């Protein structure tokens, strides 16, 4: 099926409702981004999501949309609680994959002479790479506590301070987590992966603030030009992957047996009615993985801070580390939104999309009530990352959502092919970026040319009034799996 597109304005495209679609699709993109979006099958996936029961408004796609499995990466969709569904594929395998940004009192040029040492020390300290295991071994009861308490569990164990929780989406613990619904396999895979970074596009990056777009919001976010910051991108590791896999299989089996009253355009879109016990169990398990991911990033932040202190031989008050915010980009959440002019609770799926609450939203902590929620957008390892703040348009247009990153344009195999014979780490070093990575192909797979230009993505987000740019961060040192 060919997906037709109608351009609405410079940053929005409509996919008209046709066939079995229950709502139209809406893609946020400019002409340049749309040219690359049309190259893969992601627009078809936006249309497929629009066929799912109970979907309201539009099947949405952010400007970093690319071809996923089932849902597109960069997809946002909201479903009525009575008639609608929840889909594990609409959250993704890496439940609560997300970002966390820390500011410091240091200037980037002060630490630049020790950048090689810092990156090497981080690489030694943080368990990275495929199937990495951490030094923490969780007992079953501790694993249950992590699943319910999330980041607070880590804080109680001495990783960070209670102040961090206010600066974490959902205070680092999603409600409704119930470890009794988890499979033995999920528990087994979660046992030794807390406090690990993983591989692929996950990273820890040391950065410099190199542009400030909104000085007032930047001040309230404790950001200043020339400042050293660090950024963490990772998720719930094998624990989340197994939970997604378990429930996709259970939901897929019910669909195959004809036990759900609707057709699926793609088996990966297996889902359950939100009113069912199966959906309740999935959401309870998903919350466990979300909480595990928040604890994971909390622990990694603490170890990163310790590495800074030791390598730079400075005291905590000299470093002045401050968690700016921690936000997830793979999640399903019950939230209040306007549907046909009425406040309605819906289940919003964000698959590679970041929540972006506008100023004044009641879910925001007091510190960010006036600025809007910090939105953290990592670029690829050779280009900038961005700090945005949620804007009013996000509630009107995208169920309070924004983009989550640059979005790939090359497959991993294409990237490795194109990078053949090149020393990506040397190319990056020439640009002033020190990179350490574990995997044999990671740097080639993750090279800058494999991604869209993140600045185009955030410009569309700003033009669509989903979020406003606050500051830009330039990479100085990166560790990857």
């Amino acid at each position: 099926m060919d997906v037709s597109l109608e351009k609405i304005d410079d940053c929005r495209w409509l996919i008209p409702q046709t066939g079995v679609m229950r709502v139209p699709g809406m893609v946020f993109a400019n002409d340049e981004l749309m040219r690359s979006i049309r190259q893969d099958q992601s627009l078809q996936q936006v249309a497929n999501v629009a066929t799912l029961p109970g979907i309201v408004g539009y099947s949405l796609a952010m400007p970093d949309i690319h071809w996923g499995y089932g849902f597109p990466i960069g997809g946002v969709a909201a479903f009525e609680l009575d008639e609608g569904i929840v889909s594990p594929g609409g959250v993704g395998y890496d439940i609560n994959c997300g970002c966390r940004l820390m500011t410091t009192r240091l200037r980037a040029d002060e630490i630049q002479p020790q950048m090689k040492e810092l990156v090497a020390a981080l690489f030694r300290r943080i368990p990275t790479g495929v199937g990495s295991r951490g030094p923490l071994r969780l007992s079953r009861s501790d694993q249950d506590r992590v699943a319910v308490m999330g980041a607070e569990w880590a804080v109680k164990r001495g990783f960070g301070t209670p102040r961090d929780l206010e600066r974490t989406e959902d205070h680092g613990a999603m409600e409704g987590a119930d470890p009794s619904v988890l499979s033995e396999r999920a528990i087994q895979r979660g046992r030794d992966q807390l406090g690990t970074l993983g591989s692929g596009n996950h990273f820890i990056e040391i950065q410099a603030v190199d542009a400030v777009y909104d000085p007032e919001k930047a001040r309230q976010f404790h950001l200043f030009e020339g400042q050293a910051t660090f950024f963490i991108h990772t998720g719930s590791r094998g624990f989340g992957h197994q939970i997604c896999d378990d429930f996709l299989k259970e939901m897929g089996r019910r669909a195959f047996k004809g036990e759900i009253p609707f057709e699926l355009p793609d088996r990966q879109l297996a889902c359950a009615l939100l009113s069912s016990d199966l959906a309740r169990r999935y959401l309870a398990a998903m919350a466990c993985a979300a909480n595990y991911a928040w604890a994971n990033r909390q622990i990694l932040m603490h170890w990163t801070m310790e590495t800074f202190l030791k390598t730079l031989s400075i005291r905590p008050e000299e470093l002045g580390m401050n968690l700016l915010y921690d936000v997830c980009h793979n999640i399903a959440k019950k939230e209040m939104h306007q549907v046909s002019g009425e406040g309605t609770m819906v289940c919003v799926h964000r698959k590679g999309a970041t929540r972006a609450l506008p100023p004044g939203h009641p879910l925001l902590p007091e510190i960010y009530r006036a600025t809007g929620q910090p939105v953290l957008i990592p670029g690829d390892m050779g280009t900038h990352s961005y700090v945005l703040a949620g804007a009013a348009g996000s509630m009107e247009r995208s169920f309070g959502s924004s983009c989550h990153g640059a979005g790939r344009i090359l497959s991993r195999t294409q990237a490795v092919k194109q990078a053949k014979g090149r020393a990506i780490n040397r190319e990056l070093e020439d640009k002033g970026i020190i990179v350490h990575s574990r995997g044999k192909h990671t740097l080639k797979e993750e090279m800058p040319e494999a991604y869209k230009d993140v600045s185009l993505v955030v410009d569309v987000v700003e033009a669509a009034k989903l979020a406003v740019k606050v500051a830009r961060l330039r990479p100085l040192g990166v560790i990857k799996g």
Partner: protein
Amino acid sequence: MPGKQTCFTFLDHTADLGIRLTGPTLEDLFRNAGLSLMEIMLDKRPAAKTSPHHLSVSGDDLPDLMVRWLGEILYLLEGENKVAMDIEINAISETQLDATLHTVPFDPRIHQMVTEIKAATYHQIEVAPTGNGWQATVIFDL
């Protein structure tokens, strides 16, 4: 040496990793799929003394059986630290598979994991007969 007999090609998929597999028989196709998964994830699997591990998998149809089969082998590595060096398919139907996997304990210093696969997905999954055997398409989430 295990791994040498696998036969797959990579498909381009922007987010993830897709492979196309072939085999003269259904048994060969599933064996090939399991060994290809190990080959993609691990850089080296030097010959070593193995222990048998029996697996019994049921699926709703062949594509579901393929996703569940690969999920079992992935879990064996990630959850139980066992690397499948070779695979014998003892019996297979459209909905049931019995296999013996010859495994060694995973050792990161020896096996060097190179690709982290989160799961085999149902997205565009295909298992179908061809003129002279069987073919499958599987997309993995990385």
